[in-house]
C-alpha cells in the first residue's frame, strides 16, 4: 500500500472527489497557480481547470459567502483558508449563514472549509492557532480534526460528501511529518467515530489532531515504566464519539484530556463535564487536562516549546495520575 504524507493524503482525497463529482470545486487564496501556501492543491489547476480551482482576492468573508451561495445552487465547494487563523474574517458567513441556513430555510449547505491550523512551526500568534472551539460551539456545523494520513484522506472525502458545512482542520505540523499507508482507491472514514489509536489499561488519553502523536509518544515512554496509556483519537469534535470516550474511561478509570488548544473553553472542558456526568462512578482519580496555557501562541521558539503540550508533559501528568 502506498505510503503518503498527511498532506498528500488530503490532496488525494480532494482529487478523487473532484474526479468523482463534477459539482465539487475549490476556492481560496493562491490555490491555483501557486498550488496553495502549503501546496495541498498543487496540480489541481492543470488537471481540473480554472473553473473548478478558483483563486480569489484576500477576503475570507467573500470566499465563504461565495461558497455558501454556490452550495445553495447545488455545488459542493471546498474552501481553503490559507491559515485557519484567517477564518475569523469569514466568521459571520460561517456561523450565521452556513450553519443556520438549513435550520432557517431548509436547503443544505454542503461546503467544506479546510486549512492548516496549529503550532509547532514557529509561526507566531497569527499562524498557529487551534481555534476549533469557535466552531464546535456553533450548532449546524461539523468539525473534523484528523491525525493520520489515512484518516485525513477518508475524512476529507466524507466531509465533501456531507450535506452539512464542515470545518476541516489540517494540522500543519503533521503535513509532511506524518506518513502512513493510504489506500489508492476510494474509501471514507465516518465523521463522529473515534479511533482507539493505542490500546491500554491504566489511563485513557483522549485527544485529537497532532496531539494524538504526542500521546502515543508518551504512551511508548510510559510503557517502560509499567503505566499503560490508552489513546483515543477523536477524529471529529462535532459530532464526537461520546460512546468510545466513556467506554475507555470505564475501562481505565482514569483519564487525561489532551489538546493543543488553550485551556479555558477547550474541548477538554466539555469532555470533563460529560465524563463527570455519565461516568462519575467509574473514576478512580481526578479528570486531568493537559493543554496549552491561556495565552496566544508565542512567537519565540523556546516560549512556543514551553507553551505547547508535549510527550514529557503528558508523561508527567500520567505518572501523577497513575500514583493517585
Amino acid at each position, binding site marked *: 500500500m502506498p505510503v503518503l504524507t498527511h498532506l498528500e493524503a488530503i490532496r488525494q482525497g480532494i482529487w478523487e472527489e473532484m474526479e468523482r463529482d463534477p459539482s465539487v470545486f475549490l476556492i481560496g487564496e493562491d490555490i491555483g497557480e501557486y498550488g496553495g501556501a502549503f501546496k495541498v492543491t498543487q496540480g489541481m489547476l492543470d488537471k481540473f481547470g480554472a473553473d473548478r480551482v478558483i483563486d480569489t482576492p484576500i477576503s475570507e468573508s467573500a470566499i465563504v459567502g461565495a461558497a455558501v451561495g454556490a452550495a445553495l445552487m447545488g455545488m459542493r465547494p471546498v474552501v481553503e483558508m490559507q491559515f485557519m487563523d484567517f477564518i475569523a474574517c469569514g466568521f459571520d458567513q460561517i456561523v450565521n449563514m452556513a450553519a443556520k441556513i438549513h435550520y432557517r430555510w431548509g436547503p443544505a449547505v454542503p461546503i467544506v472549509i479546510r486549512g492548516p491550523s496549529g503550532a509547532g512551526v514557529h509561526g507566531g500568534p497569527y499562524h498557529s492557532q487551534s481555534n476549533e472551539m469557535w466552531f464546535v460551539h456553533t450548532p449546524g456545523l461539523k468539525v473534523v480534526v484528523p491525525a493520520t494520513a489515512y484518516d485525513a484522506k477518508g475524512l476529507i472525502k466524507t466531509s465533501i460528501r456531507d450535506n452539512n458545512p464542515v470545518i476541516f482542520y489540517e494540522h500543519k505540523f503533521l503535513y509532511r511529518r506524518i506518513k502512513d499507508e493510504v489506500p489508492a482507491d476510494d474509501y471514507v472514514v465516518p465523521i463522529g467515530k473515534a479511533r482507539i489509536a493505542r490500546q491500554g489499561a491504566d489511563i485513557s488519553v483522549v485527544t485529537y489532531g497532532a496531539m494524538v502523536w504526542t500521546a502515543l509518544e508518551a504512551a511508548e515512554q510510559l510503557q517502560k515504566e509499567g503505566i499503560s496509556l490508552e489513546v483515543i483519537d477523536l477524529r471529529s469534535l462535532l459530532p464526537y464519539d461520546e460512546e468510545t470516550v466513556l467506554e475507555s474511561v470505564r475501562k481505565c*478509570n482514569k483519564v487525561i484530556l489532551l489538546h493543543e488548544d488553550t485551556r479555558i473553553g477547550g474541548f477538554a472542558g466539555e469532555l470533563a463535564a460529560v465524563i463527570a456526568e455519565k461516568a*462519575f*462512578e*467509574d*473514576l*478512580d*482519580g481526578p479528570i486531568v487536562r493537559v493543554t496549552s496555557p491561556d495565552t496566544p501562541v508565542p512567537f519565540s521558539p523556546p516560549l512556543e516549546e514551553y507553551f505547547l503540550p508535549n510527550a514529557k508533559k503528558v508523561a508527567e501528568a500520567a505518572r501523577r495520575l497513575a*500514583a*493517585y
Partner: protein
Amino acid sequence: MPTNVIMPQMGESIAEGTVTKWLKKVGDRVERDEALLEISTDKVDAEIPSPSAGVLTKILVAENQTVAVNAIVAEIDGEGSGAAAGGPEPVRPQSAAPSVPPASAPPTLPISADSRAAIATPSPVPAPDGDTRPTSQPASQAPATPQASPAAQAGRELGAAGIGGNGHKVRSSPLVRRIAKENQVDLRSVTGTGLGGRISKKDILDYLAAGPAATQAAGEARPKPAVLPQPDTWQAPGPQQPAPAPVSPLTFSGATQAVPMTPMRKQIAEHMILSRRTSAHVTTVFEVEMTRVYQMRAQNAAEFERRNGQRLTFTSFFVRAAVEAIKQYPIFNASVDGDNVIYKRDVNIGIAVALETGLIVPVVKHADEKNFLGVARAVTDLAERARTKRLNFDEVQGGTFTITNPGVFGSLFGTPIINQPQVAILGVGVIEKRAVVRNDAIAIRPMAYLALSFDHRVIDGAMADQFLVKVKTVLENWSEAVL
C-alpha cells in the same frame, strides 16, 4: 456557666447520631447522669445521661434530626442559673459529687448499671413487657412509634467515603466507593497505596481478590451490630397470646407512601444480604423434648429470681446447651478467612433481641467460662438492657455463635440467616405440649424444634446433625452438675 451536651461517639466508626426522643423539656431540672435524651446511631440506640446537674436551657437538635458526632445537642445551665430559672431547689447528694466533668467532656456511655440505679426518674422508654419479665414477651407489644427518620440518616457505614470515627477521612474515589458499595466492603478495612494513603481501584480489587472471607474477617475486626431477622424472645411453654406486630399509623397521600429506613433497618438489610451472599446456608431441624429443662427451671426459678431479681428464662438453657456442643464441635465457633477456617478460643453467644424498630444481638461473652447461673444472669441482663436501649457498644460485638427464637409467635421453627462472620445460628421454635410416642404409647410432652442454619462451606450436614444431637442430649438430660 452552661454545660454542653454533645452527641456522643457510639463506636469508632460512627460519624453521626439521630436524636430520637427528648426526655426533658427546656426549663426542666436534670441531675447529673439523669437520662436526658435518646439517640439512635448506626450501631446502637442509647439513652444519653446529663453531663451535669442544672436546668436544661436549650435544646439545639430536634427529635428525628441527625447530627454529627460531638455536635452540641443541648445546653444545661449550672446550679446558679438553675436556681434562677427553676427556683431554689435542694441540691441532691449525687449532684454534689466533687468530680463534675468539664463542660466539653463527652458523657461516658452507656452509663453504668450503678449510676442508672441512682436515677430517680423511671425510664421513659416505653417498657414493652413490664420490667419483671423482660425476656418473656415480644418487644413488639410496645406501642408502635412511627419512625420518621430523615433521609439524612443514610447509612454511611458501607461504601461511603466516610469519615472515620477519629475524624480521618478515608480517601478513595467515586469508582472505589461504587465497588465498595457493590461488594459491601467497609473501606476502612482496605489499605490504600495511592497518594496520601488513598484507596485506588487496584487496592480495592486486590482486597476483593483476597476473597469474601477477608471481607468477613475485616467486618469482624470492626464488628457492626449483629442483627437478625427473627423475633427472639423466649417464652414460657403453654398457651401464648402472640402480640400483634406493630402497625405504623401510615397516612397515604397517594397509592404508596415512601418511609425512609431507620439506620438500624438499613444495617439489618445490608447485613442480611451480605450473609445470604457469603454463606452457603443449609438448615437442619431436630425435635427436642423439654421435660427435663422444664423440671429444672421449675425447681430453680424461684431461687434464681430471689437471688437475681430476674426471671430464669429458657434462653439460658439453650445458651448453655449450645456452649456444651461448641466445646465438642469447635467448628461451630469459627469463621472463614480466605482459605483458612479461623477457630475462636472464646465462646461468645449472641442472643437476638427484638426491638420496636428492629433487632439487636447482645453478646454473652465467654459463655464457656460461665456456669449456668452466670449465663442466665448475663442473658436476662442483656435482654433487658437491649430493650431499654442501654446496651454498651462492646456488648453487641464479638459474637461467635448466635441463638434466635422464632418460636415467640408460635412458629414451629424458622430457617435463620447466619450472623456474619459466624458459621452457624441456632433457632428455637415454640415450646409446646405435643403428643409423642414413648415406649410404644402416646405421651404428652413439652417439645420444641431446634433449627440450625450452618455454612455448608465449612460444615457438612453430618457435622451439623451431630452438633444438634449434642444440644438435644444436653437439654434432654440436664443434670444438676450443669446447673
